[in-house]
């Protein structure tokens, strides 16, 4: 196995993993703050992929740029969904909430199937096949741009949670819900904002993703599972955990696809998931629940 092939694959894994990480970050915010098991997270991401593809094919808008308005639109969508539909489920038995989101996922996926059909959609940006040479290895420009976008958004979110009042309030809700209520935080509004942020991440990730892979409706469930795997492996409630988990999974899958075979690559993620669930449920970086 030539070392530069391995290096190339590794770099690819890292870059793609960063975009996965952004998607997972959104789930971490939703799952960790609002405590909603968003089984439709992958579905929303794929919805964003279609949205970006649509904008690209109709308006010629580069998906990497479309990520911003799409993220914004998804924020509004998330806010509305949480406030309108999901809020009653936050304090209900977990399995009900679950099933509700599963239902929502089914509705989304099949709506996409109805509207767009099962064929794959891809955004062929003009620089899709360009790459840079970094020493002995080739790095795809699209991957770098997508990864850069992911990092930018994550950094912005990090700053938001660290330095703004609203961000801090949201972190308080995640930390200690009853305490947050006791000090008078408007938990309903904060939950809605958090859900909005979570979906915005999914939206941005989807837009970035459409230059990397094709959009088909049946990608959605595997994205959901991937997002949960990353969040669990990286650690619930940890932003760096989500990113690190994304990179880890991205690299692991990339390596697995050349060491074993491409069809077996998700086995690695599952193996990781099972191991983490059993032995270190708080994930690599997360806090103990």
């Amino acid at each position: 196995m030539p070392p530069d092939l391995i290096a190339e694959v590794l770099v690819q894994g890292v870059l793609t993993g960063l975009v996965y990480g952004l998607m997972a970050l959104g789930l971490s915010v939703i799952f960790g703050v609002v405590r909603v098991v968003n089984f439709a997270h992958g579905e929303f991401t794929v919805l964003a992929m279609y949205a970006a593809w649509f904008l690209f094919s109709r308006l010629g808008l580069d998906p990497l740029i479309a990520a911003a308005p799409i993220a914004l639109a998804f924020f509004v969508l998330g806010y509305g969904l949480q406030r309108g539909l999901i809020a009653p489920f936050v304090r209900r038995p977990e399995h009900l909430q679950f099933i509700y989101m599963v239902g929502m996922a089914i509705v989304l996926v099949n709506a996409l199937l109805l509207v767009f059909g099962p064929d794959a959609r891809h955004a062929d940006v003009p620089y899709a096949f360009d790459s840079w040479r970094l020493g002995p290895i080739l790095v795809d420009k699209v991957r770098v741009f997508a990864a850069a976008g992911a990092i930018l958004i994550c950094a912005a979110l990090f700053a938001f949670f660290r330095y703004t009042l609203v961000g801090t309030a949201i972190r308080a809700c995640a930390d200690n819900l009853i305490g947050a209520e006791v000090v008078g935080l408007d938990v309903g509004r904060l939950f809605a904002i958090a859900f909005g942020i979570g979906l915005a991440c999914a939206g941005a990730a989807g837009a970035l993703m459409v230059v990397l892979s094709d959009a088909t409706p049946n990608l959605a469930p595997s994205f959901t599972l991937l997002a949960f795997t990353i969040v669990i492996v990286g650690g619930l409630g940890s932003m760096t955990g989500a990113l690190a988990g994304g990179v880890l999974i991205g690299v692991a899958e990339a390596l697995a696809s050349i060491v074993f075979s491409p069809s077996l690559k998700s086995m690695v993620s599952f193996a990781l998931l099972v191991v983490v669930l059993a032995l270190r449920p708080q994930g690599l970086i997360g806090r103990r629940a």
Partner: protein
Amino acid sequence: MNGAGRSFISREKAVALALLGALLVAAPLVLDRYFLSVFILVFWSAYVGQAWNVMMGFAGLLSLGHALYVGVAAYIAAALYVHFGLSPLIGLIPAAAACMGFGAAIGWLGFRFRIEGVYFALLTIAFAEATRIAFDNSDWTGGAGGLFISVSSATAGQWWNLRGGPLLFYYLALAMAAAAFLFCALLMRSPLGYRWLAVREDPEAARALGVDVLRVRLASVIVSAAMTSLAGVFYAFYYNNVFTGQIFDISRSIEIILAPIIGGVGTLFGPILGAFVLIPLGQLLLWGTQALGLDAPGLEALLYGLCLMIIVTRAPEGVWPRLERLLRGKDEAP
């Protein structure tokens, strides 16, 4: 959750069931092939829903990867028949055993390491997916291309190989659904059934009463897996083909849980009612869109998703408990 401690089944329900049973047994006299196939689907859904319900309704464990057992059993029974000519009536034994093994593995992993709730559900999904990939790469079972059971005049009439027309499968499915109902009714009244209820309500309190929670939970997973495996064998020989992408898919797992959740988790009649409501509804929708000349792939599933959302919001215990209260009159004690 009611049931344990009361008389087996109330007289009214028993009479109603007997009537329904008689109707269903006689139905093929008037039904054409299409309606037979719809009923087969209803019976199959009721059966597999009842099997899933054992884990969720009785022991409180959410499995979103039940397609695993359908797929494993389907593949094993079908492969044994295709390669060795082994009758599925015998082939179901290794199929069920394999499923019980998988169930035990998932259960042990989950319970030994205290994996619960959403994490347990994710575990079941991951197992189903991993198994799909494994079967994708297994040539003995046809890989991703699928496994086919030949349908030829040479084997026609070999009921022991489940070769036959829709009538054979109709009565087989009906018998399975009825047997599952009776089996679960008996289970609910057994010591194991009582312990399941206790563990579902409050595992710590159950432990303090001497209930081995791990054993009891494991039992529910294994029983559920064994029951589901038979549905897998049926599936393989009814459709005569098995594809990894179809049979292990999460949408199959979700199909399995639709009827019991909408009908009523934890009740005996829930899965049956759910199946009888959902399948015809879906067929109606399909017929409607076809009549209008629309091509709408996924519309049926979309409807199911909506139903799920509505039921969970408005009637979380399911349609059956509501219906039961309505029929009984609200002044009677539950």
